[in-house]
């Protein structure tokens, strides 16, 4: 296996980890915006407690994906950022507003009007950013971004304005919302009413994922033919079977209030979806004109990068383990002091 293949897998792994951690943080923001009723403020507190200590670290997975693209596959980075300049800029605006409003809300006065104003910015940014992330991934998979001689030939609107890409954006939102609500049932385990609130939200968003997934699949037939032909291969059918098992398992666990199992199953579901998509798209980095092998830089850089990642992982994973050990071990103790 060439180093570029290893790096392609690492990028996919980083993207999956970003979805599982950072994605759920966006989902938390969506439920923050949708919080209503007498327990709205309490729901928001549980969400803020859950993502407060970890969202910045989770966010670095996205930066890692970006850095890996431009280090290992430099032409792809330039071309993607050119063809998708507009939605990528919108992602950035979303990232800035989401992060800033979250921390501003925590440290600004806790008066209701001020708190609500920051919540609104935080919630809207959390809603929009995953949409544009999904949109960009859909565009890269669509096959509509065309490249010749290292130049984007398809202009600045190709791919991301298609129904398929928009469906990908909506599906990403739904996926993150479902993931977050499922996680939050565990985070809120000492607050039965809040836990029930999130259980209901997880069930609703989880059920609505099925038609959304079907829509993406159907639209991919004409909107992303390469992905579609990948998704109907035998291994992909198996993978989708496993995804469905996870999806049903997550919903059943939620229904029966086995929240820890639901969390595992939901994470498994998201992992398998992204894995299936990644495998269906391989060997293309940007469908159909740019492959991982074609965009890879010098072998010397790739080799060093693989080693760096291996050594970095030795530092990184124990650190993450410690972080989650401290804050997710005794979930939802909700003592006030930081």
């Amino acid at each position, binding site marked *: 296996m060439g180093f570029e293949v290893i790096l392609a897998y690492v990028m996919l792994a980083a993207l999956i980890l970003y979805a599982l951690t950072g994605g759920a943080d966006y989902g938390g923001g969506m439920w923050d915006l949708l919080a209503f009723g007498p327990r709205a403020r309490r729901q928001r507190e549980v969400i803020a407690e859950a993502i407060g*200590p970890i969202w910045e*670290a989770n966010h670095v997975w996205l930066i890692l994906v970006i850095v890996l693209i431009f280090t290992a596959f430099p032409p792809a980075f330039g071309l993607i*950022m*050119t063809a998708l300049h507009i939605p990528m800029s919108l992602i950035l605006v979303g*990232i800035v507003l989401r992060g*800033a409003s979250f*921390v501003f809300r925590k440290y600004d006065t806790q008066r209701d009007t001020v708190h609500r104003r920051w919540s609104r910015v935080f919630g809207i940014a959390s809603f929009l950013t995953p949409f544009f992330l999904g949109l960009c991934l859909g565009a890269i998979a669509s096959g509509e971004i065309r490249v010749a001689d290292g130049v984007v030939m398809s202009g600045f609107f190709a791919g991301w304005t298609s129904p398929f890409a928009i469906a990908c954006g909506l599906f990403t939102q739904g996926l993150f919302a479902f993931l977050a609500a499922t996680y939050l049932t565990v985070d809120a385990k000492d607050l039965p009413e809040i836990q029930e609130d999130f259980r209901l939200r997880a069930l609703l968003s989880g059920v609505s994922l099925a038609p959304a997934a079907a829509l993406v699949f159907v639209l991919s037939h004409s909107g992303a033919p390469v992905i579609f032909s990948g998704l109907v291969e035998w291994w992909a059918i198996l993978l989708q079977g496993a995804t469905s098992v996870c999806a049903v398992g997550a919903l059943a666990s939620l229904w029966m209030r086995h929240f820890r199992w639901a969390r595992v199953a939901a994470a498994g579901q998201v992992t398998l979806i992204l894995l299936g998509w990644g495998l269906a798209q391989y060997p293309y980095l940007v469908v159909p004109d740019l492959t991982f092998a074609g965009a890879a830089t010098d072998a010397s850089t790739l080799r060093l990068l693989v080693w*760096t990642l291996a050594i970095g992982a030795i530092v990184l994973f124990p650190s993450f383990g410690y972080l989650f050990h401290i804050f997710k071990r005794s979930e939802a103790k909700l003592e006030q002091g930081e």
Partner: protein
Amino acid sequence: MSDFMFARSQMAMSLAFHIIFAVVGIGMPLLMAMSEGLYLRTKKAIYLDLSKRWAKGTAILFAVGAVSGTVLSFELGLLWPGFMEYAGGIIGMPFSLEGFAFFTEAIFLGIYLYGWDRIPPLAHWLSGIMVAISGMLSGVFVVTANAWMNAPTGFDIVDGKVVNIDPIAAMLNPAALQQVVHMTLAAYVATGFAVAGIHAFFLLRDRTSTFHRRAMGVALALALVSIPLQIVSGDLIAKMVAERQPAKFAAMEGHYRTERGAPIIIGGIPDDEAMETKYAIKIPYGLSFLAHGDPNAEVTGLEDIPRDEWPNTKVVHWAFDIMVGTGFLMLFIALWAAWRWWRLKRLPDDIWLLRALVFAGPLGFIAIEAGWFVTEVGRQPWIIYQVMRTEEAVTPMPGLVVPFTTFTLLYLSLSVILVFLLKRQFVETDPVDEPAEVADGV
């Protein structure tokens, strides 16, 4: 303005905004760790309170730094795809390492900010040390990538294509050491003076406040140690630039004519047509001596550089003078404070010294912004020195006025809100005070 100029302006604006938070992310963890270390040693609650209050301000600024840093990593491709296609494989390595350093910083900062009551005091302090170290390393790695743009090494060009990439050699380029030292010290200088200035301001209002006295002491200690080192490091980096980038050096100094026994030119108005810097103060032989250690050495002037390879002389010269001027102002104020501290055998609180420290508060940040103008504008018209011109690297995207305006407005509003929030954080909440121990030293 052309799309090219909007691209440059957006990049400059994004960098100028982010650098403030990046610097805080390097400097503040060290101050917090120093203060918490003092708490662990002396068991004085005031140091713990100080760490906690600094941590709150840092949390806000760190979050903005994390997101504005993300913006920059995207903008490398959004604005300069030609550069990244060419250089990504060569300088991606320090960015990858920076990714890990930043991961570590974010993880341990999360633990530090939210873990006060959840982990033992020593583990908490060590988390703070981890934040300080990884924060510093993040900066180090990114600066090596910037240094490579000034001193590109570690690759060959065959038929216009980049081959034989050696990422380690690219990282350890000839400008890296000087730039890394200069920027790391700059972060400590700027944070030290800014924090000392804030607490000096509160001391002027209430000179009996032990809290602000101790806070100023910790910050001032960092400032006093780092500013003299920074002046030395400035001399080293200037010698490197004189040797490697004569056009940048000549523009910094407003130096047009190649000559022996060249004077240092301070201030004035560089006039590219008349080829001289008018109305300037001149120190004879100074430039030859500074650049080459010999008052009669020859210093290359802009006249020996092709006209289309000149940077903007006014911007570079004035930015350089602002950087050096603020640097020396800080040095003098630091010497004054150190002398008073030594004489009094306790933290000095003379009114005029406190006022000077308040005045010096923003100087470190002004010097950093000016310094980045020197190195970035001074490298123009190159994005990779003598390898690729900036205009070759710019995106084909039209209408760049839109993202430029969007991000400028976004950052402006964030800045206004931040100032308001930080002010609130420090002014409206009263620190616990221990009036009994006003007299003893820090």
